[in-house]
């Protein structure tokens, strides 16, 4: 019963989170003594046989241009048909925006238990138990999947892709077409920025920065590090920054390697969106700011004095 990995793409390129899913799926295949196969939908410019580098032996490709954009209902139908055809035991996807639309549908269609937001490999010593974050990152739950087919939606950035060498065999998969019920009318991308949900490093600012005119230092540091920018809700509500940058209980949640917070108090509602970050760095002039309790590194100081020196030091390293 092979492991089937859904490879998500945007504009013809495989997403980073899907390389993570591929590696993760290949690991499960190795653990359970089976093979890892992938399914790719749409026309891609990326090279598919090189998915073998991530442990995939076979790629099922539906080279249909109309599948270049997500239609969760169609995608589910196709992935489910393939999973049934190859008798897959586990289906792996990234729990990114598209994964969140497809995985639950797939679960209901195949009557297959889903772990949404997995952060560990399965423990198969007693069932099929996978760990995920619950209570907005304040705890973890170990979930046992009770069904013969299991669906795992892997949290982005929770598993580092391992690149080896290998060449996957690419075969065409031709599901019977069905008309789409969703008509795409526009795609608006913020150009030249690292998307927050995929970012490994995030630089974030709060009301301590006093006004939108002071965001230059946040952006400069982000640019030097190839990081995404974020903000607190207070900042988005004041229209200093766009709403899609706001993280926390009511905004986006992020799980980067580093969350670098400048002039943010660290209210519990803010922490709810960022406490899955691996390392938290806090710059705040108030030593009592609650954020320091959740931080790994910090400076008690004035952002306007500290940040220019930090930027200069990073510039030295990054040349």
């Amino acid at each position, binding site marked *: 019963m092979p492991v089937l990995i859904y490879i998500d793409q945007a504009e013809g390129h495989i997403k980073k989170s899907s390389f993570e899913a591929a590696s993760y799926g290949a690991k499960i295949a190795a653990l359970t003594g089976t093979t890892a196969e992938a399914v790719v939908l749409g026309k891609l410019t990326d090279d598919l046989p090189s998915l073998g580098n991530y442990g995939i032996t076979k790629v099922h490709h539906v080279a249909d241009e109309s599948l270049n*954009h997500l239609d*969760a*209902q169609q995608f*589910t139908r196709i992935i489910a048909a393939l999973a049934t055809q190859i008798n897959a035991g586990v289906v792996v996807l990234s*729990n*990114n*925006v*598209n994964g969140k*639309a*497809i995985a*639950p*549908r797939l*679960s*209901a269609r195949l*009557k*297959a*238990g*889903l772990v949404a937001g997995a952060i560990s490999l399965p423990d198969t010593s007693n069932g099929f138990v996978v760990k*995920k974050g619950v*209570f907005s990152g*304040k*705890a973890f*739950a*170990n*979930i046992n*999947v*009770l069904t013969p087919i299991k669906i795992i939606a892997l949290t982005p950035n929770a598993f580092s892709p391992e690149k080896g060498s290998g060449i996957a065999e690419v075969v065409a998969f031709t599901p019977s077409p069905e008309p789409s*019920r*969703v008509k*795409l*009318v526009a*795609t*608006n*991308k913020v150009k030249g920025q690292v*998307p*927050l949900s995929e970012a490994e*490093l995030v630089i974030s600012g709060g009301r301590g920065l006093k006004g939108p005119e002071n965001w230059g230092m946040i952006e400069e540091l982000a640019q030097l590090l190839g990081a995404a920018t974020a903000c607190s809700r207070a900042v988005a509500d004041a229209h200093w920054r766009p709403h*899609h940058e706001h993280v926390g*209980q*009511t905004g986006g949640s992020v799980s980067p390697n*580093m969350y670098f917070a400048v002039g943010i108090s660290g209210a*519990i509602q803010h922490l*709810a969106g960022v406490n899955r970050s691996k*390392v938290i760095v*806090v710059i705040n002039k108030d030593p009592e700011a609650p954020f*320091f*309790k959740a*931080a*790994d*590194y910090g*400076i*008690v*100081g004035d952002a306007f*004095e*500290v940040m220019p*020196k*930090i930027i200069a030091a*990073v510039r030295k*390293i*990054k040349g």
Partner: protein
Amino acid sequence: MKILVCISKTPDTTAKIAFVDNNTKFAAEGVQWIINPYDEWYALVRAIELKEQDPSSIIHLVTVGTADAEPIIRKALALGGDEAIRVNLESHDSFTIASQISAIAREGAYDLILTGKETLDYNGASIGGMVAELLDLPFISLATKFDLAGNTATVTREIEGGEEVAEVNLPLVVSCQKGVAEQRIPNMKGIMGARSKPLKVVEPTATEALTSIVNFELPPAKAGVKLVSADQPEELVRLLHEEAKLF
């Protein structure tokens, strides 16, 4: 138009997260429950806004939960639903909850089913998609904007680094997040009126759980923050570079 809004309860954000019974159960004792913010602020409020545009619309609320979910569903009614249905079942298996909701939805023949983006406690972001699949309906996840013109919905959804706009005909399932609606506070009139609004309790249909929770874990305590002097920001950069190897 008939709208069904899925309402769940979640511990207040400031609630202490702890577990009992060998870490198999959330310590619910003394916890304050709130309406899951995505359900209240975005799904429900958008439904109310749609009803303001078209007063002939009907809003039904559904919650899958035992009697302790009633204060929450009453509060949601106070905000603006016409009628609420509580399916008398406590479950943390998304498929079980989705099966109950889809049974209610099938019976009520709704044009629009709205859910929140995710629950703040179990963080599945799964139930909307499952309901859509069980009902064979289109599903737009993580919507940030939702407009209706006759039978056609125009929905904006989040994608990595941007957004996508799509047109879909009703009936439809949408999961809602920030942007979909304006926040509002219930008025006293609504709160008084809510007491006389019908709250129907129905027994669950038989479904088999696809997953079970083995136990919970709390994250290991943080080692504590390593503070660097404000006179030496360069030292922080060195630590992040050499010790934490972040860049």
